[in-house]
């Protein structure tokens, strides 16, 4: 589904991503592990078209992504639920969700139906639908962010540290929801530092260190790996 081929990204003279090769198959839930500053957000932004790679190419369902505008990438079926959520804080929850369906704006009926599905997935959002998104709690805002991303009906959903700053109980629910989204047919790429919880719902994982992918394997291999346990699980 998604294939990255020897991707490099630089910020000025600093090489943030180095020779990234990655493949994600349709229907998978893949976790990207990496410490602060490893380059996870940079990779997501490169896939989303927010920053230009300096070398390599990206392919999605057989089409080249390189050089496309962010809006074209959302239309192609890849959407990112970004670190820090990036909501429209003064707009209501309902408006945030509505704008999530921007690329399908001609299909009003479909958008409304999809919005109802999001309220089923996150019932609390239905209660808060007229409140400004900025006034919600962190966990609720994360739900708006995921809901908004899902409104564009992605085939590949990229989630950048959705558990950041949330209480353990909320994190568990969040991961349950992500698993459910994946089961319903959306391919998921999940960047996390919360390795144990993330690996539990994943089928495969990559580990990123200093802009390079240093390890790859399925869930069991990763959970059993000494280095991963030491670095990310602390046991």
């Amino acid at each position: 589904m998604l294939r990255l081929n020897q991707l490099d990204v630089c910020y000025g003279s600093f090489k943030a991503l180095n020779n990234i090769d990655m493949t994600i198959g349709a229907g998978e839930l893949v976790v990207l592990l990496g410490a602060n500053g490893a380059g996870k957000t940079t990779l997501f932004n490169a896939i989303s078209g927010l920053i230009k790679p300096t070398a390599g190419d990206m392919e999605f369902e057989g089409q080249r992504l390189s050089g496309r505008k962010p809006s074209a990438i959302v239309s192609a079926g890849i959407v990112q639920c970004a670190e820090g959520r990036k909501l429209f804080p003064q707009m209501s929850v309902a408006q945030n969700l509505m704008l999530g369906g921007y690329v399908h704006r001609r299909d009003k009926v479909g958008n409304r139906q999809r919005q109802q599905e999001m309220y089923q997935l996150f019932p609390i959002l239905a209660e808060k639908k007229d409140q400004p998104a900025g006034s919600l709690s962190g966990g609720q805002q994360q739900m708006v962010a995921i809901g908004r991303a899902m409104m564009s009906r992605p085939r590949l959903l990229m989630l950048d540290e959705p558990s950041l700053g949330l209480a353990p109980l909320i994190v568990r629910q969040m991961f349950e929801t992500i698993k459910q989204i994946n089961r319903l047919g959306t391919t998921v790429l999940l960047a996390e530092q919360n390795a144990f919880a993330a690996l539990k719902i994943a089928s495969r994982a990559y580990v990123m260190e200093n802009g390079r992918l240093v390890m790859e394997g399925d869930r069991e291999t990763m959970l059993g790996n000494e280095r991963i346990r030491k670095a990310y699980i602390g046991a």
Partner: protein
Amino acid sequence: MNLFLQQIINGLTLGSIYGLVALGLTLVYGILHIPNFAHGALYMVGAFMSYFLMVDVGVHYWIAMAGSALIVAALAIICERLVFHPLRHSPPIHDKIAAIGILLFLEALVQMFWGADFRRMSSPFTGILNFDGLIIPEQRLLIIVGALTLVALLQVFLRKTMTGATILALAQNREGAFLVGIDANRVAMMTFGISGALAAIAATLYAPINLVYPAMGHLVIMKAFVIIILGGMGSVPGAIAGGMIIGFAEAFGGFYISTAYKDIIAFGLLVVILSVRPQGLFAKGAH
């Protein structure tokens, strides 16, 4: 009593014009993140375009207004494409300098064609309505009704349509807007177009009870700055309310204190309000 009501009409008239100009300024602020100093020049060009279409081409007032709105919208879009868009990655000071450049350029251009003279623009609405002693010139009524209608339409567009919501979305969170697939170029051009059209309509409404000359935008834009500082940069309701506050302060101050000081009142009010509420009267941010 009638004198008091008369000042209310004057306040509404001024407030309507200031509000329309400030609305355009506040919308563009959401895109540029600086106040667009060239906005006053767009207002001035709007008045000259209407004047030209009415006097030299000979069309009706309404058609001149529509034509002027279209021309100035196109001019604003050209400014965005040729000047602000290429500067989008530069530090904000470059935008500010460029905006002043556009201002000087447009003023010089208009002066080259029309000279620096003061001109009078007529309108078909010269009648005066008399409601039991309360005197309302038709043009003033047109200004108030016209501005209220435009503000209502703009609100519906921004709040109820997906296309309008993209303007506020881009202003509230630029990256968030990219992430949902909003094309920044389209929104930027649309916003500049709307702000130009609003400026041209405001100028065409106001010109018949004022004069048309190349420097006519200066005072209006200064006051619009005061309004968006008071109303909160980027805030749509703040621009409307701020416009009315300044309009009323001028009408009443001019009447009860002295017309000679009328133009100073806006700035005096700014100093007073900012010393009490440094954040402005309304919440900052595009909404």
